[in-house]
């Protein structure tokens, strides 16, 4: 670590000015749960460190018009404690609840989970299934990008991740999440799936499925979506969806040592998200 200057920033403007001035010499820190490890092991060696965790406008969860907006420094714990993420948005609550440990959830942020670009970021698949939009800001202006496309065009050195927003779902639109970890707590995900389903009775009227740890980045599982769209959610459909996802994984993860296990284990979590969605649709409380 060889940091020359640090800033406890109080405003977005100050941060983007600093980022504009120092570029790649500067790094932004919020929860610190990933970046301090990288700093301490000299994986990254910035000269300037800018704390954004005290900037009011980056904090918190807001409901405005038809959107729900999550400030980038909102912690996992804040999502877990928010009543917004009950009922049909339970999937995001569940994902955040399964992050690391209480200490990590108290500090780690949604923005950090996205900006770090980890393939196993727990909160990303549900946000992606919600078709979220990421807002980034720099001295050159504002950039909005869908989370799905974000990984192809991620945060640039002068940019600050401001927030992420998605359309508030209707009662028949349900978000679910499932994770397979290596142990019961402090577990990095080895497989995650999230689905957003609009039901018409048991029929899937629209659907988005996103996965984590199945590729270089979290991604949409379009083949599964195409298969499930318009079908009635029953055992046969679930079996079919599992096959579709397995075929897609076989292509993608060909030759990987992890494939034989993941292609088997995926059935459990795909089944879990679909069955849970149906249960919530039918009024069973999942929380």
């Amino acid at each position, binding site marked *: *670590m*060889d*940091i*020359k*200057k*640090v800033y*406890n920033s109080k405003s977005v403007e100050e941060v983007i000015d600093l980022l504009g001035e120092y570029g790649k010499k500067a790094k932004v*820190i919020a*929860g*610190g*749960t990933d970046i*301090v*490890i990288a*700093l*301490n092991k000299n994986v990254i060696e910035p000269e300037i*460190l800018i*704390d954004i*965790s*005290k900037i009011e406008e980056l904090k918190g969860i807001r409901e405005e018009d038809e959107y729900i907006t999550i400030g980038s420094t909102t912690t996992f*714990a804040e999502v877990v404690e928010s009543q917004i993420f009950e009922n049909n948005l339970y999937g995001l609550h569940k994902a955040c609840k399964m992050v*690391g*440990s*209480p*200490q*990590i959830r*108290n*500090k780690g942020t949604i923005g950090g989970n996205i900006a770090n670009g980890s393939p196993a970021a727990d909160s990303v698949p549900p946000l992606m299934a919600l078709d979220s939009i990421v807002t980034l800001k720099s001295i050159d202006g504002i950039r909005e990008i869908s989370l799905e496309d974000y990984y192809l065009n991620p945060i640039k050195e002068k940019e600050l991740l401001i927030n992420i927003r998605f359309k508030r779902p209707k009662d028949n639109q349900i978000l679910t999440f499932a994770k397979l970890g290596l142990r*019961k*707590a*402090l577990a990095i995900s080895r497989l995650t799936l999230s689905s957003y389903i609009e039901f018409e009775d048991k029929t899937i009227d629209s659907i988005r499925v996103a996965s984590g740890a199945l590729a270089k980045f979290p991604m949409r599982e379009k083949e599964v979506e195409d298969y499930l769209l318009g079908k009635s959610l029953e055992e046969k459909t679930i079996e079919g969806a599992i096959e579709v996802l397995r075929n897609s994984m076989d292509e993608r993860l060909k030759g990987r040592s992890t494939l034989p296990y993941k292609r088997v284990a995926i059935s459990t979590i795909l089944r879990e998200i679909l069955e849970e969605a149906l249960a919530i649709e039918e009024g069973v409380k999942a929380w």
Partner: protein
Amino acid sequence: MVNINFTVNGKPYEISIDENMRLIDVLRDELGLIGTKEGCGEGECGACTIIMDGETVNSCLVMGFQADGSNIVTIEGLEKDGQLHPVQRAYMEAGAVQCGFCIPGMVLSTKALLDKNPSPSDEEIREGISGNLCRCTGYNKMLIATKKAIEYMKGE
């Protein structure tokens, strides 16, 4: 060097620290609060757990300068008027202490849990201390200690 103002165990501090210090380094090397332990340096073991603005955090994952303006409780801040905190007392009495290296962090996680949830289920207790690794005790005496602490806190 950077100046920070913060409160630790009820006492205000205004100190000048190296920009490269993590909060754990500030607490141990600058303030001499050696009850906060470093076991892994990556937020996995929880030995460096402190309570920062009411929430447990791994002090190895917070930069020192970020603590500016915060209110911190370390293990040294739990005793009140020479009396052990009920969680400390319960840990002793239940036999939940062995090598002791995880204990400051574990006690603080337990306290923070009970502050938020005064009557947790077994599962919630396990979850509450799931960010604190212990290699000696198998955790079960910590569950017993936590239940004992709940009783003591009810009596207070």
